[in-house]
């Protein structure tokens, strides 16, 4: 599995550099405008793009077919993608964390609140990946992208419907349980891994 991770990191090396560069630009802008919130959100959400890019690259060069000819189990191949996503997510979160702690104390924005928020966003990014990966395995990159756009429309539509119907969203209640969100997100990742392995075992290349 280490071999697969190294291969994936090499494959997305360029994109990873671009994500880091864009994050730094956002960081500079955020420091300038004394609002670090924007940077935090965007940098962590970018970490979602990398595992998807890695799947797109694999699909393009028919990597999976070759991987299956090597001494690698189907479970290990799928698991390595999840570990890659997790590593990228954690890595980028740590970079963001370090930058926040670097800039925060000098008055470039409130960072005490941003740190816990960052972990929530980071867990949220993993939740998105948890939804995305089984779709990518099942439908391929092209179709999965469309399905994702539709899926992400649903919460938006629901909120529009809710506000039209004047349903009161129990914000206080949500805030009370917000610390459960990361746990729920990582739980979702585990379920997603299980589903992806099931899909991948049946797949032919």
């Amino acid at each position, binding site marked *: 599995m280490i*071999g697969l991770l190294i*291969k994936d990191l090499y494959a997305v090396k360029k994109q990873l550099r671009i994500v880091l560069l864009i994050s730094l630009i956002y960081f500079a802008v955020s420091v300038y405008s004394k609002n670090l919130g924007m940077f935090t959100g965007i940098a962590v959400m970018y970490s979602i793009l990398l595992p998807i890019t890695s799947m797109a690259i694999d699909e393009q060069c*028919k990597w999976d077919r*070759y991987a*299956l*000819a090597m001494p690698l189990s189907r479970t290990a191949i799928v698991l390595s993608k999840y570990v890659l996503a997790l590593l990228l997510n954690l890595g980028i979160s740590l970079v963001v964390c370090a930058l926040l702690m670097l800039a925060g104390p000098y008055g470039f924005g409130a960072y005490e609140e941003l740190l816990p928020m960052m972990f929530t966003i980071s867990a949220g990014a993993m939740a998105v990946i948890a939804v995305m990966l089984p779709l990518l395995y099942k439908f391929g990159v092209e179709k999965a992208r469309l399905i994702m756009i539709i899926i992400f429309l649903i919460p938006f539509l629901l909120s529009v419907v809710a506000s039209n119907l004047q349903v009161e969203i129990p914000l206080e209640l949500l805030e009370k349980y917000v610390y459960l969100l990361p746990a729920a997100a990582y739980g979702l990742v585990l379920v997603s891994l299980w589903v992806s392995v099931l899909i991948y075992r049946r797949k032919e*290349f």
Partner: protein
Amino acid sequence: MNNALEINGLTKTYDRFRLDNISFSLPEGSIMGFIGENGAGKTTTIKLILNIIRRDEGEIKIFGRDNLIDEAELKQDIGVVLDDINFPESMTPRSINKFMRHIYRRWDQHAFFDYLDKFALPQRKELKSFSRGMKLKLSIAVAMSHQAKLLILDEPTSGLDPVVRDEILDIFLEFIQNEQHSIFLSTHITSDIEKIADYITFIHQGRLVFVEETNELLNRYGILKCGLQDFEQLEPGSVLGYRKNRFGVEALVERAKFKGYTVDDASIEDIMLFIIRGEKK
């Protein structure tokens, strides 16, 4: 003699194609050429051997062990070249070396870099700047750098010029000097097979046509050239395939049945073409 590869009753059905009851075995220490037209089922067979796709029926043994039960262990000993180059284009031969050594237990980076030198492949260039021939050579280098005992190669020489092809065939012949080593290769280029293969397996439309020793095959069959009238008098069933031209008829026949006639040598390509395209008598 032990078999490196043994296939029994292998069957796989798709909507429009069926690989039907294929059986053959490749003795250790030999090279088997796997021939057939496009779409005959060569790649399907290779994917089934490697369990990239699931078989419907049949049994595959590699070094006497079931290919599904001992899959991970067996694949340590198999070097593979598939019909496409399957590395991401942004990688370099050097980065391939870095991850391959974590995948194959016996990955030998010296051997790998030696092959890169031999094939004149740059170590630090991205694969997107490689020609098809260079990419193929890279795949061959990877397949041969982890002390594999069995090479399974899907069209390893297509798209290469005759000089490079010859070089690669020499490397295959060198590999086979170790009598525990074996090669199973599919190809369109039948002249390559004539040069190196000990056995030939021929499939057509998903069915096995024959498995033969190359020399025996070439000795057994020949091409009879005769006039139309003489041809009419030949026994039905004695001709495997024929075609008419303006001088008369050319027919693929078994030499033993035509002693006293002038029968020319047939190449593997002739045998393949007469059987697939020739008319039957």
